[in-house]
């Protein structure tokens, strides 16, 4: 366990180096947070209540999902695929710890960095510009921490499997890009899943992608409380376990294919 903590810490520290990059990203998030908030203002002028959201809920959703992009790695990262392509994967596979665990630990280190230095400032900017809805109950913060931790796992497992495609194709980014585009839409990042038509909503809410963005946002908004909250976290935990299991299975299958070229 200590080795994974150390790996996570290193990943966290690596991100600390790129301060200006984070500032530029923060600027971009702030701009898009604003640009995407404006259509919501107009939409709620036409109707005061949309699928149980009032304007403030919708604005809070908007800034929360904007804040989460980097935390849950919504738009991917192809480091694993790159090591597979370059062959460096061989040295990672031969290290005395789990290949999946290694990358998962790194992802948690990265996620914690972005939670502190990206998500928090983005939400504060949203608060300054529009005034957001903050949790009314202290317990929500604890639930949010659990939900975010699970969201990172689900996001990671999905992305990791897309990366593993590099074992079979030279173009993991092409396959993965399509997967990320679909997951962005289905995660509740583009539009709250509650806004979906009634026939489609149960489907999108049951899929694992809901657990990457929509569930943490719902927890923060206190749209799920009590047993419903337990159910939402349970669904996230189930998907996290299933996807991590599937990812581990894929690692086992893929490593059988690895042929080390001498040299």
């Amino acid at each position: 366990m200590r080795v994974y903590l150390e790996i996570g810490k290193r990943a966290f520290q690596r991100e600390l180096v790129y301060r200006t990059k984070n500032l530029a990203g923060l600027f971009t998030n702030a701009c898009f947070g604003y640009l995407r908030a404006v259509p919501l203002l107009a939409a709620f002028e036409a109707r005061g209540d949309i699928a149980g959201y009032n304007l403030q809920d919708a604005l809070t959703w908007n800034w929360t999902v904007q804040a989460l992009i980097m935390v849950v790695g919504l738009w991917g990262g192809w480091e694993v695929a790159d090591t597979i392509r370059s062959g460096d994967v061989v040295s990672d596979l031969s290290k005395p710890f789990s290949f999946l665990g290694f990358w998962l630990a790194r992802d948690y280190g990265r996620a914690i960095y972005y939670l502190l230095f990206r998500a928090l400032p983005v939400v504060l900017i949203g608060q300054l510009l529009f005034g957001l809805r903050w949790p009314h109950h202290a317990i929500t913060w604890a639930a949010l921490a659990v939900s975010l931790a699970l969201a990172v796992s689900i996001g990671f497992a999905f992305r990791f499997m897309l990366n593993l495609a590099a074992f079979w194709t030279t173009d993991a980014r092409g396959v993965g890009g399509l997967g990320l585009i679909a997951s962005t839409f289905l995660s509740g990042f583009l539009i709250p899943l509650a806004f979906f038509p009634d026939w489609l909503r149960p489907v999108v809410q049951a899929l694992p992608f809901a657990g990457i963005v929509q569930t943490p946002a719902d927890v923060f908004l206190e749209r799920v409380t009590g047993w419903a909250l337990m159910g939402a976290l349970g669904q996230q935990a189930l998907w996290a376990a299933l996807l991590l299991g599937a990812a581990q299975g894929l690692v086992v299958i893929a490593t059988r294919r690895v042929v080390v070229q001498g040299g």
Partner: protein
Amino acid sequence: MPLREYWRLYWRLVGASARGQMQYKASFLLATAGVFAANLFDFGALLVLYHRIPHLAGWSLGEVALLWGMSAVSFALADTIASGFDLVPAMIRQGDFDRLLTRPLGAFFQTIAARLTLRRLGRIGQGLVILAVAQGEVAIPWTPGKLAVLMVALAAGAAIFFSVYILGAAYAFWTVEGTEVVNTFTYGGTTMTSYPLDIFHGWLRRFVTFIFPLAFVNYYPALYLLERPDPLGLPAWAGWLSPLVATLCCVVAAWGWSFGVRHYQSTGS
């Protein structure tokens, strides 16, 4: 060198770039499908929203879709033609831009001819489909004048976005670093132009009308097509101003680029 020669050389160079991208046919098709799908999902989100509301600031779904399609086509054209300029920050960082300056052709020409990313055309297809459906939906009474405004606006919109790319690349002559801030103007620009500008606050609307003239990409031409009055009070013929505005943008971009090239100092590594 006569212009015809430049033209021939341009196609020869980007042809080579295109052939390179076609080497992996499956991945090329996949990437094009990805670009197509990405924007379709964005539009899907708009459909989901409209399923819940009757209109957005008095604009129906069909009317917003018209804006959406025009913006997508113009942006995709610019994004494709300007792909070479994506390489500029990396070229500056690695000192490769020096090499460009030693060759007997302009730096601008060499950059624009360096790459033509064909997969980005996937967005044009998507934009055209939405545009075609939207114009049927809002039942525009087409006249030759309106058709001309649409065609000219698509080209002028592309030129406006193109000049943003040029200025973004020129900006790298000073910052050396990447272009995330530039993305705010390009992708942010498409996001804004995908909605009626009526929804934006006064200062931002004036900014994108008079200073950073995104409003002429599609908003004013669309007002003309839809025969809607302008909330800012510009007359209906503002829809005809796109080519003029686009020309101004290109002049500013050309000036910014040559200013950047003149002030270029090699990174020396």
